[in-house]
C-alpha cells in the first residue's frame, strides 16, 4: 500500500511514470503504423506498375 501512496506523493509519481511510458509506447506504435502505411502504398504502386507492364 505504501508503494501506491508514496508518502502522499503517489498521484505525482505514478502519473509521471504512466505518462512517460504511455508517450514512448504511443510514439513506437505510431511510427510502426506510419512505416507500414508507406510500405503498403509503395507495394501497391509497384505491383500495379508491374501488372501494367
Amino acid at each position: 500500500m505504501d508503494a501506491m501512496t508514496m508518502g502522499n506523493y503517489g498521484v505525482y509519481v505514478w502519473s509521471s511514470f504512466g505518462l512517460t511510458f504511455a508517450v514512448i509506447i504511443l510514439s513506437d506504435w505510431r511510427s510502426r503504423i506510419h512505416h507500414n502505411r508507406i510500405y503498403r502504398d509503395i507495394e501497391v504502386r509497384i505491383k500495379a506498375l508491374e501488372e501494367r507492364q
Partner: protein
Amino acid sequence: MWNFFKQLASPPHFYRLAATIIPWLAVPGLLLIAYGAYAGLFLAPEDYQQGDAYRIIYVHVPAAYLSMMAYMFMALGGAIGLVWRMKLAHAVGAAAAPLGAAFTFLALVTGSIWGRPMWGTWWEWGDPRLTSELILLFLYFGYMALRSAIDDTAKADKASAVLALVGVVNVVVVHFSVEWWSSLHQGQTLFKKGGPGMDAEMLYPLIAMIVGFTLVFGALLARRIRTEVLHRERRTRWVREMILSPAGGR
C-alpha cells in the same frame, strides 16, 4: 574510415542495417528501464527532504537529457546534410524532431508535476530552465511545421537544417541556465565537481534509466529513419527490387 561512413550513409545499406540493430538496442534498453523503474520506485530509499516525490527524477532526468540530445542529432544531421549534401543526414534530422518534441513534452510535464508538491506551483515563468525548455519545444514544433509547409524535400531539408542550427544556441542555454542564472530548478547533480551528489542506492537506478532510455531512443530513432528513408527513396530501383523480392523489406 571514410569508406565506412560512406557505406553507412548509403540509404539501402542503412535501411537494412537499422532493421538489424533495432532489437539490439530495444531489448537491453527495455531491460535496463525495467530494472531502473523497479529499483527507483521500490528499492531506492526516500529522500530526507523531498520524500518519495523525488522518484519522478527517474523519468524526468532521462526525458530532459534526451530532449537536448535529440536536438543535437537534428542539428548535426542538418549540418552534415548542408556541408556534405548527404541525404541520410537530413533524414536523421527529420526523424529526430518528433521524438525530440515527445521527450521535451515529457520533461516539461514531469518537471511540472514534480514542481507542484516541491515548489508549490506547476509553472514559474521567470525560471530560466523551464522557459528555455519550453522554447526548445517550440523550436521542435517550428522545425516540423517548416518541413511540412515546403513540398520540395530538398528545399525543406535546407530550410529546416538552418533553423535547427540556429536553435542550438537554445540547447546551450537550457544546459547552462541553472549555472548562469538564479533558478528554482536544482543545479547539476550527476556531473558536478567532486562526483554525483546522490547516494549509490538512488544513483544506480537513475544511471540504468538514462542508459535504458538512450538505447530505446536509439531504437525509436532508427525505426523513424528507416521510414523516412523509405519515403524519400520510394521511386528508386533498390526499393522496387526490395519490395518485389520474396523476403520483402519491412
